[in-house]
């Protein structure tokens, strides 16, 4: 279905099955597979983490690991060949920024179930993306 003529669709993936389900939905919506962009956001490292203290892990390393793991996972789920982006920081901001940078036409995101306590304190990533994004956001209820 040519829902959005040649506009990029951004799909955040956090390795949960919900987020891959969102990717399936996005694949149906996009005109072409080449318009799909997958983004994975990693938290910043803690300065007192053992790997940081001993300088055995760094962001470049983590990016490489995560991209590799994501590509393997995408291959398993039949989404090979998608453009993958790995960012660091707050997921809500990074996703919205990435979509803006691409001038994306849509963000497809699943509203993930968190514990009541964390939801109260944090809200969900989806809430934040809706608030910050400059383009339409499709929030999939699980």
């Amino acid at each position, binding site marked *: 279905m040519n829902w959005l003529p040649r506009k990029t669709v951004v799909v955040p993936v956090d*390795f949960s099955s919900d987020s891959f389900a969102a990717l399936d939905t996005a694949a149906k919506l996009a005109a072409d597979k080449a318009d799909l962009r997958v983004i*994975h956001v*990693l*938290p*910043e*490292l*803690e*300065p*007192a*983490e*053992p*790997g*940081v*203290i*001993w*300088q*055995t*892990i760094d962001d470049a*390393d*983590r*990016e490489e*690991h*995560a991209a590799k*793991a*994501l590509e393997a996972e995408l291959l398993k789920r039949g989404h090979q060949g998608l453009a993958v982006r*790995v960012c660091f920081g*707050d997921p809500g901001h990074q996703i919205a920024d990435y979509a803006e940078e691409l001038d994306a036409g849509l963000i497809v995101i699943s509203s993930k179930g968190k514990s009541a*306590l*964390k939801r109260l*304190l*944090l809200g969900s990533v989806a809430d934040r993306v809706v608030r910050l994004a400059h383009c339409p956001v499709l929030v999939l209820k699980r």
Partner: protein
Amino acid sequence: MIKPNHRTSWHLAALLLLFVSPAGPIHAQDASVEKAAPETLQEEAGELAQPDVPALPADSGSPPATPVPEDPDWMEDVDVFFGKWVVTPLYRVLFFDFWSDRWVPAGTPEKVTCPNPTCRHSHDVAALYPDSKPPIVIPCPDCGTDIPTGAKVPLVVLWLFVGALFFTIRMGFINVRGFWHAIQVTLGNYDKPGEKGEVSHFQALASALSATVGLGNIAGVAIAISLGGPGAVFWLIVAGLLGMSTKFSECTLGQLYRKVDPDGTVSGGPMHYLRDGLSEIGLGRLGAVLATIFALVCMGGSFGGGNVFQVGQSLEMVRSMVPFVDAYPWVYGLVLVFLAGIVIIGGIRRIASTAEKVVPAMCGLYVLASMYILAVNYVHVGPALVEIVTKAFTPSAAYGGFVGVMMTGIRRAAFSNEAGLGSASIAHAAAKTDEPVSEGIVALLEPFIDTVVVCTMTGLVIVVTGVYDSSRFPECAEFIADGKGAPLTAVAFSTALSWFPWLLTIAVCLFAYSTLISWSYYGERCWSHLFGHKTALVYKIIFLGFVFLGSIVKAQNIIDFSDLMILSMAFPNILGAALLSGKIRRALDDYWHRLKTGEIKTSAEMQKGIES
């Protein structure tokens, strides 16, 4: 210029405290009306001490260390509130002693003081019972109140000791049979390329050590000896040796249930193994509850033993050396807040990295300095050893009897080496290995280095030089009475060389700083586990608030609070680990079998195999 600052510092601290405690200033004022809390605090302070220690004045719970406290009433209100609603309830549960002072004799005291707050009369025991031995509970001749003269057996200390004994037997004395293998694994002789994790075995051990080697080794041991006498050193070592098995068990679990994220980073620790491990054996609900309790008390421990205690005791050391800091202790607090803040909030990694890397070297230097003092006093070493062993089994009323000495030693050992508290497994989970048991075996070196080597050195130096005996060193009486452990150790060091205390001061500051940084990481992990990674900044700000509090508040109940929080981590952790002990034992037996049959090869053997 200075005065207004001073005032602000007190207010800031008080505000922070209120921020942390759930209720507002109205309650704090309520509590100040009823002066019930200091009484219970006294019990704590006098615990294990001889019964004839003169009772502290009722409001001595918060003598401010600063020379000119501008607003002591305000601080005292908060202090009383804190004592009444936080420390006392916690104390009642954790240090519940089954009224053991009514059936465990502590020896024959010379004098007793009536615990009734309206009576408080002192009585000469020899005058009351001239010919026969006095009973464990003496009725006060004036008001009839029972005066217990026995030793206390606090629940948490018993729990730690029984736990350590259980793991030692359950794991077939792994602390002995795994020792040599532990050294080999730490040296990297069993490393394989491509194993998952963040750091090498040695690096993981050093990281965990930087959290454990701190003021507990320098000040804590001095406190133990001033409360329990030389015999406490014996029980400290015994608890350290048994604690090796506990440490092995918890760190193996940490590795077994760690989570390796897609980016290659690792997270593990009691929060993970209590929840996931217990749900595996059908106790999912209990596991979730224990994991949450652990995360909460571990955050508390990171404010207390990993923070306030370190700052407070290192400050005592610094102020005995630097007159300026003695006059303005809050400056020391601010410096530490700044140095910790630029790392944990500012993200400047180099400082933390350097501080943690010098810990093993500092440890070595400290042990060498201690050995020098022992060498200078070589004639006293033999008698000191005899004294340590004999006093460990001689009931002395002054130190709370046989049981009192034992409890003091075990308590300080656990505080120092963290065996049974579960915190170290957070750091050990990061080790690069595919064999969970091998990291557990590396971890058992930790109580050995921390307690059996470093604490014993401090203990020997103090016993050999005799500074714990205020009849020989009258200048130390104040340190002993006020629980200022670090200066006591400094006096012991200065008997040999006058500049040694300076070396000690530098070591103490470094140990305190690296312990702060490491514990902030433990606490942050627990906070993230409960409230998510995004809000971790809140935790860090509270953490820095406590760093500052540690430099200005001298209140006994805040230090007691740290002791309580850090030791209470043992409840969820040891319970969970004991329930999972079958799993650890199976993993250990499997590993040991493969090691003995040569299936697990050293790196050198593998290299040979590839070449041939």
